[in-house]
């Protein structure tokens, strides 16, 4: 492998990894607060792609307005799901909420099949994002280059939000102790809604970046990336944002290199084996906190 191809693969890997990171943050934040694996997150990501097609192809809205519409639509979808499917189950056993999340995922996939048909639809191209640029020897499309930059920027904003604002403080408190923070006067429902909004915002951005270089969207397009991003979140330590980012990058890079070496059909197998290995040897992930079970 020459240096140029190596760099090329690195760039691709970092790019896909940062998209995984964006989605993984959504999983990790929801898990941190609700202790819920939001199985529907991958499908929200898929719905965001359909919103884009809807806005740009069916209504011919220019891309910058479409982008805002997609973000708004996805956030609305996420908050609605939380209100309808998760909020009523807040005091019930964890298994029920998980089943509800699976139900939502099932519903969104069927809804997408019904509304948009099971056939793949081509994703609209945003003109300037597909331009080719050259960085020394390495040539790539602009979106591959923008993705990691945008991701790092968003992650810094998010970390600032969580560490230095009032709502961020509320989030940290809720994730530490649900009951006590309720007693301290934190409006739990608002905090949870904002968490979902942030997760969905990042999923919407990730969706645009993910599908722009890819040809088409279909109703199950979100389930495999969703699972992989969940694995990234577990790998980094669920509940930890830097962990989710690192996990996303590691999975993106390893996947790209396995594909580059010609084992593309095993790249997903590797990701899942990674998951099981992490769960066995370090169940709390790279940056996760240890929790102890009390009788």
């Amino acid at each position, binding site marked *: 492998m020459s240096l140029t191809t190596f760099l090329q693969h690195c760039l691709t890997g970092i790019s896909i990894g940062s998209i995984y990171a964006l989605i993984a943050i959504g999983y990790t934040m929801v898990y941190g607060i609700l*202790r819920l*694996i939001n199985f529907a997150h991958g499908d929200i990501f898929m719905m965001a792609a359909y919103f884009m097609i809807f806005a740009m192809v069916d209504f011919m809205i220019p891309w910058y307005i479409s982008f805002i519409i997609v973000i708004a639509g996805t956030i609305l979808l996420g908050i609605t799901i939380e209100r*309808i*499917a998760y909020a*009523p*189950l807040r005091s*019930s056993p*964890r*298994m*029920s909420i*998980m*089943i*509800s999340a*699976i*139900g*939502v*995922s*099932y*519903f969104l*996939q*069927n*809804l997408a*099949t*019904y509304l948009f*048909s*099971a056939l793949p639809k081509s994703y609209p191209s945003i003109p300037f994002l597909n331009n080719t640029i050259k960085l020394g020897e390495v040539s790539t499309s602009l979106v591959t280059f923008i993705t990691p930059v945008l991701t790092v920027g968003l992650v810094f904003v998010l970390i600032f939000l969580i560490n230095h604002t009032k709502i961020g403080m509320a989030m940290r408190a809720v994730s530490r102790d649900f009951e006590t923070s309720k007693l301290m006067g934190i409006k739990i429902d608002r905090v949870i809604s904002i968490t979902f909004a942030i997760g969905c915002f990042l999923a919407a951005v990730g969706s645009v970046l993910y599908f722009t270089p890819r040809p088409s969207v279909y109703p199950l397009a979100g*389930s495999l990336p969703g*699972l992989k991003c*969940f*694995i990234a979140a*577990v790998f980094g330590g669920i509940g930890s944002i830097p962990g989710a980012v690192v996990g996303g990058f590691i999975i993106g890079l390893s996947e790209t290199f396995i594909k580059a070496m010609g084992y593309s*059909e*095993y790249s*997903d*197998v590797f990701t*899942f*084996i990674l*998951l*099981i290995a992490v*769960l*066995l040897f370090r*169940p709390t992930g790279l940056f996760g906190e240890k929790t102890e079970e009390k*009788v």
Partner: protein
Amino acid sequence: MKKQTKLMLNLLLAGLAIALLVTVDMTTKSTSMLRTVLQMGSIYALVAVSMNLLNGFTGLFSLGQAGFMAVGAYTFAIITIPVNAKGGVYYLYGVNDAIKNIALPVIPAMIIAGMVAALFAFLIGAPVLKLKSDYFAIATMGFSEIVRMLIASSGLVTITNGSFGLKKIPGFTSFYSPFIVSAVCIGLIVLIINSSYGRAFKAIREDEIAAEAMGINLARTKILAFVISSFFAGIGGALLAQYLGAITSTTFPVKLTYDILLIVVIGGMGSVTGSIISSFLVIASKEWWLRFLDQEHYIGSFRVPLLKSGFRMVVFSVVLMVVVLFFRRGIMGNNEFSWDRIAARFAGRKKTSETEAESK
């Protein structure tokens, strides 16, 4: 109610079920929807009960059922495809020498299919069962996806035929075979649930730490539940392979696990009869009663809105969400079907049934 009367009523019910099957067999054509629904319902009933054993009775939330079904189905297919048909099935990549001359009869093949699935469960069980609730769910789901990807991968192409899948799997010898196999397997599961092992499973579900304090070997009992459940899931997979006649790795997606999980939830976590009733109901409504939602309908010249391909599944998933959100106990909760309850209801003594439910 006396024990004897109950026995009589149970026999009567079984007799009625058999009579129903015989009538269906006699009166319907082989392409009839009723036959399809009953056969598929019985296969799903077995798989749902096997999942319920794990999720409802032992409290281990597993999402790996499709993986174990895939293992069972592929094992069954590999060892039963007739020797002279193998060349045709594996025409592209050739047959592996190890399986070239194997063609076992159906019943031993099904038992082997179950055993192979159980072996896989045993191998991954020891490490995976250490994980707590949702991590366990994700790990088993990961296992199921790994199985599916490996089946389709090029490394096993002479055994699993890669992404083309296997066909010419021998079908059911008679209309009754899936019912007999399911009934026997579910009977065995019920016997296990009512044994001391079953009580240990329930104790783990209620409180792991208390169960351990009472002298239950947690690790061993959990593995036992996992292996038994996978064994029957494997047999269920083998039945599905016989029913379909052709399988590929896409026959067993994560969505299949979700389907089964939702059947279990609708029937009630921790109720065998609930799972059986709900699998027949769910399969019938999914494959038959709600079919009309997928076609366009006209009343006079007015086109009924919303109806088009795919609407059936949307309605179906809304029903599921309603059950999950508002009727969390499902059809049966964690009770079993019992004549006492029905008698109490008929006698208008609702109170007794309530106190009984509480005392359970």
